[in-house]
């Protein structure tokens, strides 16, 4: 098997001597579309934060593009959409264009300056997210759904090879949500972008993702949806009807 774009080996993470993640090992291959699912407090966000170097493992290791996150240089290969910021200041005096452009800093060396040519990249991604008309609007003047589209644009601006999205559709209306998932599917199929999507929506993830990573502090299931849907142990874990609900949208 080729080296994963993302490799996790016997990962353990503890907070105040309390184990949040226990002995996780898995690989994500280029072009995978992984739905990361689990109940509240199962460690989903902690897991993706360890990929980004935001949290250090207590034991085990994480490797992203062959490097440990602390030594990773090519951050522009990763697009990240955090969960809605708890400390988000709605009065922050910044335009949509300025915020989206921040995504470009990942690919720059010191001194990280934005060039005039970067404006074209910003325009392109604003158009992709259908928010060109909001370019010069202050972020605080937007609705929750519009703000989320701005943050998605910021994550996509470098055309990353790996997209890590933490509950990206919480603030989106159904129409925008559908078009966002359509965009992810196109990026995954046409550009071979690897997608890791954190969600607690087990009912719909099968419609989009090709693989399921179900965790509850440890790995409950990791594999293709096809395998999940015929797994007796998963039928036992979730109950046959729940397994059916998870699988019925997967084609």
């Amino acid at each position, binding site marked *: 098997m080729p080296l994963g774009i993302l490799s996790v080996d016997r990962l353990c993470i503890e907070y105040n001597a309390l184990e949040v993640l226990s002995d996780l090992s898995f690989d994500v291959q280029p072009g995978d579309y992984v739905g990361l699912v689990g109940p509240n407090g199962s460690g989903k966000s902690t897991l993706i934060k360890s990929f980004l170097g*935001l949290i250090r493992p207590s034991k085990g290791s994480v490797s992203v593009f062959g490097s440990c996150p602390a030594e990773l240089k090519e951050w522009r290969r990763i697009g990240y959409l955090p969960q809605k910021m708890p400390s988000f*200041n709605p009065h922050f*005096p910044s335009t949509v264009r300025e915020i989206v452009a921040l995504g470009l*800093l990942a690919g720059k060396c010191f001194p990280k300056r934005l060039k005039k040519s970067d404006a074209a990249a910003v325009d392109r991604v604003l158009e992709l997210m259908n928010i060109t008309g909001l370019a010069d609007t202050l972020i605080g003047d937007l609705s929750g759904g519009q703000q989320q589209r701005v943050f998605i644009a910021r994550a996509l601006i470098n055309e990353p090879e790996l997209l890590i999205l933490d509950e990206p559709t919480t603030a989106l209306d159904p129409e925008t949500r559908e078009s966002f998932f359509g965009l992810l599917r196109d990026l995954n199929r046409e550009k071979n972008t690897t997608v890791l999507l954190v969600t607690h929506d087990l009912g719909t993830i099968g419609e989009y993702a090709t693989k399921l990573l179900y965790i509850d502090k440890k790995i409950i299931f990791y594999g293709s949806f096809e395998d999940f849907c015929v797994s007796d142990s998963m039928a036992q874990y979730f109950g046959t009807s729940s397994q059916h609900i998870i699988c019925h949208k997967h084609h």
Partner: protein
Amino acid sequence: MDIIEFFGYGFIQRALIAGSFIALLCSTLGVLLVLRRLSLIGDGLAHVTFGSVALGLVFRVYPLALSIPVVVASSLGILKLTERARIYGDAAIGMVSSLGIAAGVLLASVAGGFNVDLFGYLFGNILAVSEAEVVTAIALSLLVLLIVYFYFHEIFSITFDEEFAKASGINTARINAILVMLTGVTVVLTMKVVGIMLTSALLILPAVTSFQVARSFRSTIIIAAVFSLLSVISGIFLAFVLNLPAGASIVLLNFLFFIAAFAWRNLRGKRNSS
């Protein structure tokens, strides 16, 4: 008195030059600090400056030279306390701030009580700034502004969303350390303009005034700088003409600018909604 006569005095020229550079410095850092909810770090570090000035006066060392390393070290102390001691920034600022005041009072007491020198540092006197202090203010202001210029986008990214900034490969620990150290240097310089007691006003007021009217991050920085410069220049003018304390005049003018900007924003809002 005509305006040419006003600008003709050497002490006015020195006050205007030093005051303008420090005003630019305060407004730029002020925007970043207020947005990061670290507004009161200026106040806390100013109190540390009080302690270091007292130390300088006791040991007859030039207070500015002693204050810069002490205040910069304290700013890093605040940062480390928030990172390592599991306490919030406001508590860390409060701890370091009270330590500075306590040390100042103790040292002043040991030295035989408060004297005129210490009072001058508490309330500042930009009109009494020396040539050497002007040169120091220009050099340090240029250094701080240059560092802010080179790290501007990283500081902006961290200010808006620290987690995303870190996930973009930005060394947030280093940038945070740079930001608080620059704040330390700025607070020491500001002491001469408005005094220890009013330092945080020069950091906070131009920033919050700018927030009322600015329509982008870039314009926020520029408008804050304009208000800050205006307040310092007109404050010095008023202080000279009406024989008022310069520091207090500058701060009160800043507050008037805030009221005007706030009223203008509300009027504009009402006009847009009608």
